[in-house]
């Protein structure tokens, strides 16, 4: 099992929990488990099956977009964090 920290605006969909325990061996599996536990998150994390462009998943200090993306391995005890890119125009 790993844990994932939820960004403040999305905690409304995790009953206010900032950290959720998740299972999975890749980022994709972890996010799938997270969305299964808290279905309201799904539309804000994914669009057409792809991770939304502003959604970044970090393992420790590393953005998994700079690793292997959704197939980045996740180990037991890993600490993940969703950090949105804040952008406007």
């Amino acid at each position: 099992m790993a844990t994932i920290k939820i960004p403040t605006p999305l905690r409304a969909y995790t009953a206010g929990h900032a950290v959720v325990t998740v299972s999975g061996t890749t980022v994709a599996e972890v996010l799938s488990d997270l969305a299964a536990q808290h279905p309201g998150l799904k539309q804000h994390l994914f669009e057409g099956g792809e991770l939304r462009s502003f959604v970044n998943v970090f393992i420790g200090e590393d953005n998994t977009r700079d690793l292997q993306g959704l197939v980045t391995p996740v180990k037991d005890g890993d600490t993940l964090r969703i950090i949105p890119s804040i952008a406007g125009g």
Partner: protein
Amino acid sequence: MRLVLPPTLHTGIQRYLESAFPNEGGGFLIGRVDNEDRIVTETRFVENIFETEEQYHRYLMDSGAFQAAEDYADANGFTLIGYFHSHPDSPAIPSEFDRVHALPNFIYLILSVQAGRADHSLVWLLADDRSRFVPVAFEEKSSIIQGG
């Protein structure tokens, strides 16, 4: 729902975003939630890291800025309420770029800066189905104890 913002903080946002003109600038709104109201107690200015030549119509924060602001809020009993950014020489109406990149339950304060001077601020919230922004009432109120 209302966004309540002390005039001193609003003025600080206005001056900061005027200084960013003709480019976009932005930052965070930090405070607390009181029933449905969002009460801003402090702001945090954040550098625009979008490609320099596109900054006149684009704004982007470094992910570390979000992490730091959220950690600060969580550790001190505050809430990361939302963020503000400017629309240089454009109305304070969310763009399609704003909508696509928006988070729910997050206040978007947009300040129109016209010819280098703050013109008007409007406040928005993304609809839960992500289809549009809805306007949020905005009140300047000074009788608030400001944090940090």
